[in-house]
C-alpha cells in the first residue's frame, strides 16, 4: 500500500530525513518509534503533503500512485489520513462543518453523491458515543478550547468518519490519561481491516499494549535503524534508544 524509498527531506534548510525506507502492506499496523528529534513527525507531515517541508530525494508510492506529486487534499481524498500531534484550533469553523466538508470531498472524488444531512448527523453521533465525546462538540469550532485529550479524540473521531485506507497517527497517544488512551486505542483498533493500514508514530510503547503492531521500526537521525516485531518495542522500553544507535555506529 505504502512504499517509501530512500526519502530525504529538509525543514527550514535543515536535513531531517536522510534516506528513509519503509513498506507497509494492507492489513498491517506499523509502529515508528524513536527519540525526540529523530524525524518521526517530519516523516508524518511529509507524507501528508506539508508544503513548507522540502523533499530533497527519494520516492513514495501510495497504492501505486506517486504520492509526492499529489497535493495534500488529493492525498486525503485518495484515502490517506494524518492524525496530528498538535491538532490545530480553528475558531469560527464548526467541527461538524469541517467533517461534513471532508467527507463530501472524499465522496465527490470517488464519484459518490454527497452525504445526506440526517444520515451524517446520525453517523457523527454514533462515532462520538464510541469516542466518549460530549454533545458540546457539535456546536464548537474545530478543536476550539479543547483539552489535549479532547483534541486527540477528535482526531480519531475524524479518522473513523473518513475511514481512510492508510492512517498515520502522529503521537496520538501523548498527553492522554489511561482511560482516554484506552478509548483512543479502541477507536484505532476498530478501523483495523484487511484492506487498511495504520502507521503509529509514537515515543512510548504503552500504546502498543493496546494496539499490537505487526512491525516496529526505530527511526533515528533521519533513517530507519532497525525493524522488528512487537518485542522490539518492549526492548526499547527497557533499554532506551542508545543501544540501537550504538549498534548502528550512528
Amino acid at each position, binding site marked *: 500500500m505504502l512504499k517509501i524509498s530512500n526519502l530525504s527531506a529538509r525543514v527550514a534548510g535543515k536535513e531531517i530525513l536522510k534516506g528513509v525506507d519503509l513498506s507497509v502492506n494492507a492489513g498491517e499496523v506499523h509502529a515508528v518509534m524513536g527519540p525526540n528529534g529523530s524525524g518521526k513527525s517530519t516523516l508524518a507531515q511529509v507524507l*501528508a*503533503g*506539508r*508544503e*513548507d517541508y522540502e523533499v530533497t530525494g527519494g520516492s513514495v508510492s501510495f497504492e501505486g500512485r506517486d504520492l509526492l506529486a499529489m*497535493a*495534500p*487534499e488529493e*492525498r*486525503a*481524498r485518495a484515502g490517506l*489520513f*494524518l492524525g*496530528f500531534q498538535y*491538532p*490545530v484550533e*480553528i*475558531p*469560527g*469553523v464548526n467541527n461538524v*462543518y*469541517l*467533517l461534513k*466538508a*471532508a467527507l463530501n*470531498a*472524499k465522496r465527490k*472524488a470517488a464519484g459518490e453523491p454527497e452525504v445526506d444531512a440526517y444520515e451524517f448527523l446520525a453517523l457523527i453521533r454514533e462515532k462520538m458515543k464510541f469516542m466518549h465525546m460530549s454533545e458540546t462538540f457539535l456546536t464548537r*469550532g*474545530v478543536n476550539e478550547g479543547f483539552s489535549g485529550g479532547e483534541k486527540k479524540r477528535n482526531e480519531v473521531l*475524524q479518522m473513523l468518519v*473518513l475511514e481512510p485506507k492508510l492512517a498515520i497517527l502522529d503521537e496520538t497517544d501523548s498527553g492522554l490519561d489511561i482511560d482516554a488512551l484506552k478509548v483512543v486505542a479502541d477507536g484505532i483498533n476498530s478501523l483495523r481491516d484487511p484492506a487498511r493500514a495504520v502507521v503509529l508514530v509514537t515515543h512510548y510503547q504503552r500504546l502498543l499494549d493496546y494496539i499490537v503492531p505487526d512491525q516496529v521500526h526505530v527511526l533515528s537521525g533521519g533513517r530507519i535503524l532497525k525493524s522488528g516485531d512487537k518485542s522490539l518495542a518492549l526492548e526499547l522500553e527497557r533499554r532506551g534508544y542508545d543501544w540501537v544507535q550504538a549498534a548502528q555506529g550512528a
Partner: protein
Amino acid sequence: MTPALRSFEAQWRGRAADPLSQVRRQAMEHFMRLGIPTLRDESWRYTDLRSLAAQSFVDAPQDAMLGGATHAAPLLNSAEGALTVLMINGRPVLPDAPFSESNSLSISTLRELSRIDPTLLARHLEPLSDAEQQRWSLLNTALFVDGLYLKVTGKLAAPLLILHVSAGASAATVSYPRVIIEVAPGASATIVEQHVSQGELAPLCNSTTRIELHEDAELEHYRVFLSGSEATHIDSLDVRQDRGSRCKQFTIVLGGGLVRTTLDSQLSRPGASLDSYSLLVGHESRHADCVNIATHAAPDTRSRQTARAIAGGTSRVVFNSKVVVGKGAMHADSQQSFRGLLLSPKAEIDSRPQLEIHADEVKCAHGSTTGRLDPNMLFYMLSRGLDRQTAQSLLVFAFLADVLTGVSVPAARSAMESALITQLPDSQLLRNFR
C-alpha cells in the same frame, strides 16, 4: 477654492432660513475655514479626497421615491418584529400606523423638532469634541434638510431599523442624513442603521448620527454600509455616555467605493462603558477608512475596541483607533485589538493604534497584527480533503464572523452574516456551509 467647496457654498446660499440658522451658519463658516481634508491632515493621510474635491455636488432629490433595486435588502423586517423607518436621501418617511411600542419610543422629524423645541435640537447639533474630527458633521449641520429624532423612554423589546437609501437622479448628488438618538435614564434599545444606495450613479452621502445615553441607559447600535461600489460615504457617529450607561456599537463596512467612518465617543461620567466592534471588508478596488476614538473623561470608565479587517484585490483598509484618558479619569480601563488579514499582494491594510494618557492608575492594553492566512490552519483543512478555495473561504469567514458573535439579536446576526458572505469571494461556496 475647489469645485466641491464652491458647490457646498452654493447649497448653503440656497437654503431657506429656519429656527436653526444661527447654529447652521456657525457650522458652515467653520467648515469653510477647515475645507476638504487633504493627505496632509493627520487623520486623513490614507484617504485621498482629491477626486471628490474636484466634483461639483447638487442636492440629491428630496422627493425621490423608491423605484428599482437597492444594493442590498433590508437586514431586518417586520416579520422579525423589527420597526422600520425609511430615510431617502436623508428625508424620513415615517410609517403611517403608530408603532405598537409608542409608549417607549417617540419619533419625530428634525423639521418638526426645530419648530417645537429648537433649543433641544440646537443642543444636539453642537460638536462634541474638537473640530478636526468633526468637519464633515459641521457640513452636515449646516446643510441637512431634514432628519430623524428618536427618543427611547422605556425598554424597547423589538429592534429598530433605520434604512438609509441614497438615490441619485444624476451624477454627483449629495445627501446629508442626520439622526439623533436619545436614550432616557434606564431605558434600552437596539437600533440598526443600514446604508444602501440605488442605481449605478455615484452619490456622496455625508451622514451624521448623534447618540446620547443618559444615566444607566443601554444601547446596541449598528451602522452597516452596503452601498454600491460607486458610492462615496462619509459617516460621523458621536456618542455621549452618562453615568453607568452601556453602549455596544458595531461598524460594519461591506460595501461602498470609498467609505470613511468615524466613531467619536465620550465616556463623560463614571461607570460608562463602551464596546465597539468594527468589521471592515476591502475587496476589488474599494477603500475603507475607519476612525475610532474613545475618550475617557471620568473615573471608572471602560472601553473596548475590537476590529477585524480583510483586504483583497487592490483594496485598501485603514483602521485608526485612539484611546484618550483625560486628567482625573482614574481607573479607566481600555483595550484596543485589531487584526487584519491580507488576501492579495496588491491589497493594503494600515492600522494605527494610539493611546493618550493624562491620568495615573489606568489599565490600557492594545494589540495590532496584520498577516496572511495561518498556514497551519490551512494545512489542517487541506489534510482533511477540503479544496484550497473552500478552506481559504471558510477561514476568512471565520476570521471576520468572530466580530459578529457579540450581536445579541439572532435575526440581525444571521442577516449580517448573510450580508457578509455576499461580499466575500466564493459567496456561493460559503452559503453551502450554513
